[in-house]
């Protein structure tokens, strides 16, 4: 039994797989990118596609520049006979949330959640401006790095960090990725020039393509499918006001509220997989989640080492779960974000059975 469960049904991540994340994957269509990951995660549990109770995916048409691009990836699922399926035009972490709800309602006992991002076809910094408020922001085309840089400067002005501290976050992340064969950037890398000051290349995520998948299962099904299930004992997501000028960019109240509702603060965590595409955002998230120095933050290398947009948040949950599966963590917090400057945040607590 998990130590604490605040929800109707026990529910765990029982398998996780991800692609190697690369700068370009021109030789792969969406389904060709996703399918090996689907096969890997199914093989880990021994489940066939037809045995999955619910399938949910996350992606964004704006990355590929094509309408309904996600429908192509359904070819890789094996959708005949017809399956129960859904899609979110968001990071796969929110697809996982939908699957979590589906299992909590008793409509399904297992779920396949997958996500992918092919950022390489388009100018991703410009593409992401199209998610902004269309009246006051989008006409100015403020790119994703610029908005993160405004947040970074606000943190520096507030005394929460400085440029050397930000550089240390980038260096630590990419060093940690040395043991992650899927990461796009590994090992020691130069901090580089300013992209938008005060953020340098090393403070910004790489642009790349990749995919990830997890399988969720309830109760005894989870125990049957996995030696040490990663029980999701709490999960919540919150959003802040759309206008950047309305927010205190040095804080993330939505992350803090989601964490409270997920039970993060009830017991210590040993691992945190944080979806912080920019080094400065890790500073904000550490503060919001109250993480101390004893917590292993982004042992996978995090988003600074690989950032397949729309999959990167799901990967945080998958990486946290995989550490529990391997016995390297007992209680982990996983975080996913969406929108500029940490606008929306999802927090999940994952726990392993006592050893």
């Amino acid at each position, binding site marked *: 039994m998990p130590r604490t469960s605040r929800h109707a049904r026990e529910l765990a991540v029982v398998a996780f797989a991800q692609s190697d994340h*690369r700068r*370009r*994957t*021109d*030789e*792969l*269509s*969406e*389904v*060709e990118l996703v*399918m090996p990951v*689907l*096969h890997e995660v199914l093989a880990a549990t021994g489940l066939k*596609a037809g045995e999955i109770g619910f399938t949910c995916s996350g992606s964004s048409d704006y990355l*590929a*520049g*094509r309408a309904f691009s996600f429908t*192509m990836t*359904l*070819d*890789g699922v*094996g*959708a005949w006979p017809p399956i129960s399926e859904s899609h979110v035009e968001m990071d796969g972490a929110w697809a996982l949330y939908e699957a979590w709800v589906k299992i909590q309602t008793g409509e399904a006992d297992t779920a396949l959640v997958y996500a992918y991002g092919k950022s390489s*076809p*388009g*100018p991703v*910094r*410009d*593409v992401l401006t*199209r998610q902004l408020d*269309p*009246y*006051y*922001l*989008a*006409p*100015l*085309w*403020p*790119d994703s790095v*610029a908005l993160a*840089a*405004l*947040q*970074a*400067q*606000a943190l520096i*002005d507030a005394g929460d960090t400085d440029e050397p501290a930000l550089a240390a976050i980038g260096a630590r992340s990419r060093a940690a990725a040395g043991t992650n064969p899927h990461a*796009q950037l590994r090992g020691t890398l130069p901090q580089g020039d*300013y*992209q*938008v*000051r*005060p953020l340098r290349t090393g403070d910004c995520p790489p642009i790349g393509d990749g995919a990830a998948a997890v399988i969720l299962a309830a109760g005894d099904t989870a125990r049957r499918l996995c030696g040490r299930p990663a029980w999701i004992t709490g999960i919540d997501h919150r959003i802040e*006001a759309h*206008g*950047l*000028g*309305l927010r205190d*960019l040095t804080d993330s109240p939505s992350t803090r509220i989601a964490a409270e509702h997920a039970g993060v603060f009830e017991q210590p965590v040993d691992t945190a997989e944080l979806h912080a595409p920019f080094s400065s955002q890790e500073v904000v998230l550490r503060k919001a989640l109250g993480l101390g120095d004893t917590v292993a933050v982004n042992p996978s290398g995090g988003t600074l080492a690989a950032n397949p947009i729309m999959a990167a948040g799901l990967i945080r949950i998958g990486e946290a779960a995989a550490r529990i599966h391997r016995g390297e963590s007992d209680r982990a917090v996983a975080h996913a974000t969406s929108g500029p400057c940490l606008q929306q945040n999802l927090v999940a607590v994952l726990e392993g059975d006592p050893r």
Partner: protein
Amino acid sequence: MTAASPPEVLRAPLVVEFPFTRSLGPVQSAFLTGLRERVVLGVQTADGTVMVPPLEYDPVTAEELRELVEVAPTGTVTTFAWNDHPRPNQPLDTPFAWVLVRLDGAGTALLHALDAPGPDAVRTGMRVRIRWAAERVGAITDIACFEPYDGPVAPAREPAPHDGGFADPVTGIIAPARLDYTYSPGRAQTAYINALAERRSVGERCPSCHKVYVPPRGACPTCGVATTDRVEVGPAGTVTTFCIVNIKAKNLDIEVPYVYAHIALDGAGLALHGRIGGIPYDQVRMGLRVEPVWTEGGRYPDHYRPTGEPDADYDAYKELI
């Protein structure tokens, strides 16, 4: 950096362009019309905070907001970011600072660009003022940018109430967007397109259910496995079903009525679609045997025409309709 993709993968420019037409509510209409008239309006919340730019609903209480007030065109930078490499469409094409500016009289900040000589000339807390665009239409870009301002601080006063009324108010905006992509169709579709250039059609067979997909997308949607076994199909095929098109499409040089059909190429496990030519539209029928017609330099069949063979038996294609 990873190795470059294999050279045989096709790539082509893909431009996505959309002019979104958006209507404005009373508050946004007053704000954007005000910019056209060099007047900056905010909206007052129940607790007295003035939001600039204004929203129609309080983000905390969700209460409707309608109390407009005029604020000053001068303000204070609350945070900034120096942009050495302006990107297309951004407000200035020379290096500039992104800034959040709290205008005098406002309690929230507005995002825009600041024209300054260099990063050392910008700091949080600096005073700035609006530089208006020469031609203003009622859009956020009517503010060309901000510029440093060392003039006197306006005497402290309450923001002045404003009725939001202007002659010829702006009621909508057109938000054009253009994004330039490079499309790559992936391995399976590249092979299909390359074969078409040689006037051949290739499909891929599912190793599990043995169905042949044309055009191939790399996966069998029934079995969820990769289709890697390449199969040449056609060139002839059978019309499995069709429709008669009576509406002339824009930019399409085809006389109506014409026939658009599903065509199962010989050896294929499903039908693709194409136009039927070389036969009066009202004589096209299910079971008609057709073959592709390429035009000079065409990379795919322009249309399909009857082969002259006897029609196929219904039983031969009924599974492919």
